[in-house]
């Protein structure tokens, strides 16, 4: 389509705005503040900073909320220029879209009820064990690799998965540790166990054949890492999450 032929970077520079597909229902990363109606989160702040970096102080970041089902079609149709929505870089996905380098190195972990016999991913690799996840996330694919004997149930969002865990629909909930720690702090009877058993590097996805745009995004990311903005945002969003070691993530 015509979208593929356009040079997104040139268009954005001319319009002085970048349109980002972001999460609106995920705490810490992208969540709508119901008081103000504005989106808030690490990804939102990072996207704003990158926009300024690329387009200058007058550049505007426009946010379009996406779900795991809609993010790629929206990108392909040109509704959004880039996806920054907790999307893990995987070889399979790279066939359809191009990724920047990772902007956040999440690790996948497990959330269980306190006192549960399950201590790590190997404990789940038994017939009859059920692991809960969120559909569309890469973490559920990983579990299939690490615990092939377990059954995986994929639910629509984190709250549903957490509630399913509470109503014993599964033995453990798996996803990226940042999100798990957030849920553990709301639910004192639950804890994160087993450490990180995979790396989940989040990347910004752009359409194929948009090398100039992708390079520019990589360039902006590096600049933010170098000038300390990245670490400042990390501290702002993850500094207070109990159990989450944000020091390790500093760049």
């Amino acid at each position, binding site marked *: 389509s015509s979208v593929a032929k356009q040079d997104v970077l040139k268009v954005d520079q001319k319009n002085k705005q970048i349109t980002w597909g972001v999460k609106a229902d995920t705490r810490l990363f992208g969540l709508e503040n119901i008081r103000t109606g504005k989106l808030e989160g690490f990804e939102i702040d990072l996207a704003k900073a990158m926009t300024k970096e690329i387009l200058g102080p007058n550049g505007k970041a426009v946010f379009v909320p996406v779900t795991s*089902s809609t993010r*790629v079609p929206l990108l392909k149709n040109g509704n959004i220029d880039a996806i920054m929505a907790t999307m893990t870089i995987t070889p399979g996905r790279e066939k359809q879209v191009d990724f920047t380098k990772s902007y956040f190195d999440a690790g996948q972990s497990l959330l269980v009820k306190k006192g549960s016999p399950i201590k790590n991913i190997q404990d789940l690799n038994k017939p009859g064990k059920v692991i809960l996840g969120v559909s569309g996330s890469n973490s559920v694919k990983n579990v299939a690799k690490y615990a092939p004997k377990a059954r995986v149930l994929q639910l629509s969002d984190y709250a*549903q998965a957490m509630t*399913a865990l509470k*109503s014993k*629909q599964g033995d453990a909930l798996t996803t990226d540790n940042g999100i798990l720690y957030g849920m553990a702090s709301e639910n004192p009877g639950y804890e994160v166990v087993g450490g990180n058993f995979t790396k989940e590097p989040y990347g910004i996805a752009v359409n194929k054949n948009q090398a100039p745009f992708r390079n520019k995004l990589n360039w902006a990311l590096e600049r933010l890492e170098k000038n300390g903005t990245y670490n400042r945002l990390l501290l702002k969003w993850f500094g207070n999450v109990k159990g989450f070691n944000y020091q390790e993530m500093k760049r």
Partner: protein
Amino acid sequence: MLDIITTQWHPLLNGLWNTILCSLIALVGSLIIGTFFALLEISKYRIVRLIGSIYVEVFRNIPLLVIAMGFFLIVPMYITKISGFAAGTIGLTLYTSAFIAETVRAGINSVEGGQLEGALANGLTHAQAMRYIILPQAFRVVIPPLGNQFINLVKNSSVLAFVAGFDLMYEGNLIANDTLQTMPTYFIVGVLYLIITLPLSYYMRHLEKKLA
């Protein structure tokens, strides 16, 4: 698109099977429950009618998704463990039964009063008249609308996708997320739904003509 079919036919078929299974169970269940509540709704006794109509109004005025989620998330907390498939199927059954109750009730009302009077005057009790004369005729009248309910039911079984019921839509979502080929995947899923529902709806139209 072809590569989706060649690489993903297994989960797709599995999803199709679960969709059909859920639909059949919910169909039988909702027919029985729906007819039961239809009979309550036309009872002589006010209080029985009230029970019937409360059931119907509650279940037909709340989104299916909310009902299914209720069964999946809340029932296990207080009552018993329940799989997503079971929770979704029960939710779908209760939801559909409210519509079927309305349909069957309308069917019973559409049988002319003379049929009931004829049977009563012939010595049958009210219950016998219902069983031998009114219900058989009512069911014939409601076959077309019931057919439409059944088609809705098949489509509504996609609610299983939200409670990890491994139906067609659930598998479709997974494949779409996995391959990122959203449109082709949903296109195939759509065709698979049509394979169930289209013949059904043409058969229903045929029946409708035959019975008219």
